[in-house]
């Protein structure tokens, strides 16, 4: 569903690169939500739906962040890779600039948190983390708003 929402939103909207286009995220997310909902009205169980919604949320976030960001690319790759792929074939990931040692426990933790943070240099990691945090915060605010408005009425 998120894939679909990507494709059509991509064709119809285009994605402005700056992250401040909250309407874009909102639109994408709402579309994704409607798709989730349409998928048989709550496909079996709320937890299943919740997972789908979560993936939709991340996908929308990544899509609206733009392809220029390493984390958004990595996130989308991760999302799209899951269904069916598993470990079908060893993915030849080109680990560019494999970080040395990973001495800092904090640094390692940050790498694990930020999508795509495994093979970035430290400076880029910080940069991507900043963008990721910004995007995440926006997404959380968006979802909070939706839930609030939904539960009010």
């Amino acid at each position, binding site marked *: *569903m998120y*894939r*679909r929402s*990507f*494709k*059509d939103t*991509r*064709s*119809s909207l*285009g994605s*402005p*690169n700056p992250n401040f*286009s*909250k*309407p*874009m995220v*909102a*639109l994408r997310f*709402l579309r994704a*939500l*409607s798709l*989730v*909902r*349409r*998928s*048989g*009205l*709550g*496909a079996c169980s*709320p*937890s*299943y739906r*919740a997972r*789908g*919604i*979560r993936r939709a*949320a991340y996908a929308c976030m990544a899509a609206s962040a*733009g*392809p220029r960001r390493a984390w958004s690319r990595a996130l989308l*790759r991760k999302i799209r890779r899951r*269904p069916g792929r598993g470990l079908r074939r060893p993915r030849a990931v080109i680990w560019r600039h494999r970080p040395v040692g990973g001495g800092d426990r*904090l640094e390692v933790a*940050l790498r694990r*948190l*930020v999508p795509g943070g495994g093979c970035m240099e430290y*400076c880029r990691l910080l*940069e991507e*983390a900043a963008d990721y*945090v910004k995007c995440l915060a926006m*997404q*959380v605010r*968006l*979802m909070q*708003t*939706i*839930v609030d*408005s*939904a539960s*009010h*009425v």
Partner: protein
Amino acid sequence: MEPPRSSGVGIDNSGEYSPEIAETLRFEEEIQSLIHPSSFDGSAAPTGGGSFTALLGLPANQAVELLHDSGAREPLASRIRVGEHPVHRPFHLPLDCSSAFPSNATLVDRAARFSVFAAEGSPASSSGRLKAEPQDSDSPPLDPIPTGPAKRKDTGRSKAKVTAKKSKNAEENTDGDKLPYVHVRARRGQATDNHSLAERARREKINARMKLLQELVPGCSKITGTALVLDEIINHVQTLQRQVEFLSMRLAAVNPRIDFSSLDSYLSAECGPVTVRNGPGGVVVDPSLWPTDATAEATRRLLVPQFWHIDLVPPQLQPQQSLTTWERDGAAHSQLLPNPTTSLFLYDPANSGDTNVPHRTAKLKTAEDRALNL
């Protein structure tokens, strides 16, 4: 007669020579000295150092002088990615492209603030070609060289030079963000070692990014110390991710009551012109940059036409009633919504009470189930 240069001549430097030989040797020397600059010139031509003299507004001869002074040394361009602080570094007129600057791209973020040049060097000891070089140096800037291991740095000779030009050059270099090479001068009283320069620049970069992060994360500004800040950042990210999960659970619980599809169509109509305004280039960018989308999976292909088909239905069914509901409820709910940023949310409550969208066909359902397959 001075002994000939053994470099190209291949003659022993021993003993004396007959006058004619000496003459010829000297002649050869001169010729070689002429050749070398020309060879430098040949190689420097494509690589010049950016129109720095133009930037500096120096007349060519002054540049020549400066270049002469810097002489031909082992010039190194530090492959430094300069950080964000405006650091005052004395200039070095780079155009001694005399320096064999490797085409290592030293990308500059805020090159403008630094008295740095982008230059690409070829060992041009003589300065005669400087006029040609400055113009040519514009070409390399667009040429980011892959990060090779060779880090070089300007050995600071004319540190004192051109300090007066610093400000001018800084202004001129405002668009120097594109210039890939950075010649960085060490600050006063700091080690001018290659490594320490590079490390210092790197550290500054990292510090700048950390400051950015600190601003983003609430409550981090008061904390001093990198480790604690990082800790706080990590906590924040984890919190946000947990919130996303939690909210998605809530949304899943709430979801059946909400009708998004008509909302969708309306919003897309609404936001169509908006997107055009925002990022007309985005549409072009996306298809090329998301090649993974091109590998459409079967489900997606299956779903898309269905999606569009279905989406067309609601607008025709409920255009008027949705509009009226929005008008009716828009005003009432505007205060309800905490989020002032977008007007989209005005429409949310308007639709939440609408009749449910009729169930979709079983075909669509199974297709989406496949898509949703987790």
